[in-house]
């Protein structure tokens, strides 16, 4: 009765776009719920990377606001953009290194919703 496919009400001519999401969900389920001793180190890395990712995104947003406000000159915009581009690439490398997905770098804050 209940299968992911049978619940499709509308849209989704290209479900593969969302299929990735399901695969990540499965992997995340194993990783997050069925934890064991081996994953302790990974858990610490996950927590640290989550905080770094939060700061990175906050700073990116801040830079965007300042760009929109016009308080940065062209040279500053270019320099900041390069820094954030490099940070984003480095973050991807770290995620790969620790086998983490975007979903893992988020915290559920209960009634406050998600961290990001």
């Amino acid at each position, binding site marked *: *009765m*209940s*299968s992911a496919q049978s*619940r*499709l*009400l*509308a*849209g*989704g*001519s*290209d*479900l593969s*776009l*969302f299929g*990735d*999401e399901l695969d*990540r969900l*499965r992997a995340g*389920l*194993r990783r997050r*719920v*069925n934890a064991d001793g081996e994953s302790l180190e990974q858990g610490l890395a996950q927590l640290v990377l989550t905080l770094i990712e939060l700061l990175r995104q906050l700073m*990116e947003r801040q*830079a*965007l606001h300042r*760009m*929109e406000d016009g308080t940065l000159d*062209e040279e500053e*915009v*270019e*320099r*900041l*953009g*390069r*820094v*954030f*581009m490099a940070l*984003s*690439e480095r973050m*991807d490398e770290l995620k790969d290194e620790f086998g983490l*997905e*975007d*979903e893992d*770098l*988020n915290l559920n804050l*209960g*009634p406050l919703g*998600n961290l*990001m």
Partner: protein
Amino acid sequence: MSVRLYAVARAGAVAPTCAGAETEPLRTVTAAGLAALVGTVPAAGAEPVTEEGLWRHEQAVEALMAEHDVLPARFGALLEGDEEVRALLRGRREAFDAALAHVSGAVEVGVRAALAEDPSEPGASESGTAYLLALKRRDELARAIAGRIAAALRPLSRESRIEEAWGPGGTLASAHLVGRERVAEFRQRAEQLARDTGPAQLVCTGPWPPYSFVGAEARA
């Protein structure tokens, strides 16, 4: 032994005959005019969590929802015994009553948008300025799509929760509490919307138990 919680309904709700997440039989525990759908399972962590277990949890909640208004519990809610379940029902009676009234006769329908190109990463640009501008466009697109979803579907919903920023994996999620009598109309509107969201693909799923509308006070 632990007690696995599936859902809270009004007293009088009858436990469905299907099995629970760990294939255990289901029963109800009643207190304070409320009924909790539960199953007795071995201690926490004895069984690995599987996708099949998740679907059995979902099926148990849906079987109850077929006949009654329900507040679905988050997957994996374990209590020590029936007395703790009764204490939970008594302690949160008002919050549960209010939440049940809110979801009464309604189901949850999910609408998600995704871009053919993963928008979570603007990609390597030749310049820093281009990177920031790409970020800005990506943010604006998310807000625009959220706005279209809100304009088209909020009027048909009792309540809508619509994210306005790309989530992990580059999808934009929204959940809608829709009266059962309006689900067909909602679906039609979602189909129209799916043809008209520009570069984004839209997918609409349901009906689901009202997981997103249980209310912060009622959440266990």
